[in-house]
């Protein structure tokens, strides 16, 4: 899966499940910008774990990502490690 596909799938989930408007989905957007709270973040993690078949919870460390662009990178990194 290339980066473009990852971004597309992440954004699709954020729009459908979390009803975030497409125009807000820019790499520099923080979770505060996206107006999601701590419960949403927990559910997003589950959604992305299911979508990409990766383990985010046991790999996340504080600062792993701080904005949407960082989330794309983090997911890409976990997919690459899984496929090693």
């Amino acid at each position, binding site marked *: 899966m290339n980066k473009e596909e990852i971004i597309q799938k992440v954004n699709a989930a954020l729009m459908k499940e979390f009803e975030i408007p497409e125009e807000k989905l820019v790499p520099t957007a923080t979770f505060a910008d996206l107006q999601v709270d701590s419960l949403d973040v*927990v559910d997003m993690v589950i959604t992305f774990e299911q979508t990409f078949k990766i383990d985010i919870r046991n790999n996340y460390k504080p600062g792993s990502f701080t904005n949407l662009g960082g989330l794309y990178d983090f997911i890409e990194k976990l997919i690459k490690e899984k496929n090693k």
Partner: protein
Amino acid sequence: MVDYHRVVITGAGAVTPYGAGVDTLVENLLNNVSAIQFIPELKETPFINSHVACKVPEIDFTFIPRQYRRYMTKMSLYAVMACQEALKTANIEKPSDDTALYIGSTMSSISSWLEFTKKYFDKELNMVKTMAVFQVLNHSPLANVAQALDMKGSGYFVSNACASSLTNIGLAYQMIKAGFVKRALCGGTEEYHPIFTGCFSILNAASTNFNDNPQKASRPFDKDRCGIVCSEGCAMLYIESLESALERKANIIAEIKGFATNTETKNIAHPSRDSMQQCIQMALNDAKLKTTDIDLVNAHATSTIAGDIEEVSAISNVFGKDIIVNSLKGHIGHSMAACGSIELISIMKMMLKNKVAGTLNLDNIDEQCNVVNHIRNTQDIKFDNFVKNSFALGGTNASMVIGRYN
């Protein structure tokens, strides 16, 4: 002498198998429209021999902000919508901080619980999303309505099976009457799942003989009745002390004059006429009204063989054979926890129109039910006081007296 308060109804809202709104509900009832339909999923489920039910049509609930909607299953969505209509008709822009909330359902969302437990049995509990936790709470509709409408007052979630909404209204009435609460939103809500029909199928109490003719399937008091048709929806009342209503110059729709509830202990599944009769009489006593003051009884009458006979016998024992009786379950089936408030609101609105819907599909009155004055078609009848009954599995009986406000 305790200084009791009179309790009046100043707002009403409903989401029913006819769609959203009280006016839609009453119009369809008066026009004898059946909302019962064939449910393919029931036919496809082994051992469920009833294939009919009533479901609320698709409604766009995105008017409820996602921050609240995400925790809601259908029963909460219906409840928020019904509460908003009740507040609007009561001319309340925002509930005051002392507005109480009384609401109940028979069970929490079955579909959400099934998804939740499937993950448990599949050893995937880590894949359950946080929203699901709030969706399966027993009092999820109470919590969700309070959050969505920013209601900070006392909240009670009374779950008394099919008497839930009437007992919630009754409790709210008693609290206002006694002076503990000044105003409240109260009622019941339910979301249909085929397991409801399955439960009544297990009890041999689901309608089975009209699977090919769904609109005939629910037929209270009729000699060919064969069981319950399950339904869903929500209805909520805005009620307040008379002083509160007068102070804010509210439009008073009707008055709650009396209420009673008791418990059947002879049999958990079959309420007896004695117990029902006692409940109705207690409600009349609470209202300080005579049997001759009551013009009509809107029966619980779910279209079961035994239940209809017991209830109509109880009504006849209290009021005599001339009392006008109807049941609305021929039209909209049995909406479980919501039936009491949906039917109460319907008859209350009909009282203001001087019209009453008859019992749909009552083609041939069962001899054993022919002990009161059944109405079978919509009629022009002026009436001032009526009794609403709800008699639930498990033995909870509830009766309420509603009258015009004078």
